[in-house]
């Protein structure tokens, strides 16, 4: 069988290295998950506590954006190499999304 790991002459070394890398990545994922749970709890608590809506709305929106960045970059691996095209697609989508929402809201509210 041809060597599938061109960076090392010894497949065994790359194998163990990769296993370790995957395990480390997994630990990062669990930390990400814990933080996402934490943000969710904070967001619900902020609404449940009955603060002013001028504080709560921007606050929960900010938490949502942070949580989605975690999801995209860690759970969906957008932080990995070779994700330039996904970034182009997602950021283009987000720009159109933002303009769409802005347009609808200004039509109705102004």
């Amino acid at each position, binding site marked *: *069988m041809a060597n*599938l*790991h061109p960076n090392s002459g010894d*497949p*065994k070394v790359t*194998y163990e290295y*990769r*296993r370790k890398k*995957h395990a480390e*990545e*997994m630990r990062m*994922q*669990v930390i990400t*998950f814990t933080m*996402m*749970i934490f943000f*969710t709890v904070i*967001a*619900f608590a902020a*609404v*449940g506590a009955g603060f002013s*809506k001028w504080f*709560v*709305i921007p606050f*929960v*929106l900010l*938490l*949502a954006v942070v*949580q*989605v960045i975690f*999801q*995209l970059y860690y*759970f*969906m691996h957008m932080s990995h190499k*070779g994700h330039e*095209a*996904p970034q182009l*697609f*997602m950021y*283009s*989508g*987000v720009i*159109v*999304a*933002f303009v*769409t*929402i802005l*347009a*609808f*809201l200004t*039509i*109705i509210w102004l």
Partner: protein
Amino acid sequence: MAAEQKFTQHTWPESPEQATLEGKNKFLGFWFFLGGETVLFASLFATYLALKDSVPSDTHAKATDLFELPLVFFMTMLLLTSSLTSVFAMYHMKNYNFKKMQQWLFITVVLGLGFLGCEIYEFNHYYHEFEHKFTSSAFGSAFYTLVGFHGGHVVFGLSWIIALMVRNAKRGLNLYNAPKFYLASLYWHFIDVVWVFIFTVVYLMGMVG
């Protein structure tokens, strides 16, 4: 590398989802689709925000009357946890551990079904207790279109993952089906991304008025 080639844990490539040209193309095409989905959901969110609480008379329920935090919190936890379990599944996919991948995908499906059950209960509750219907007001139409469309994505995602699990149960992992599992898990994460905005924009912002 041929798609049907047999692998071991040692010969399994680093990014199996992109090891073949077909895998690379699927990866690119699927992200393009997700960019489009972002725009699609944005138009539904925009419609919802524009029509929120637009009811014909005061007898109709508004957002603050309808929503209850505990149920939405429980649904959020279910979907968020299912996102993590599908990450676990892909971790085992990258380590060429087919059996564990299938087990985690199964847990993902169970959690997704739990979420779906809650949503059906929720819609049923609004319909019977509050007369909050698709046709009762602009608010009702916008609400059920947005949240229902997300629910439809959950149904499709579950069907997709179940189909992959059943179809490949005896085949094991190879470079032909690794991209399929990987993309199904991306789709599942995207469903959670949309849900984060739904629970924030629809439920949490709905509760504060």
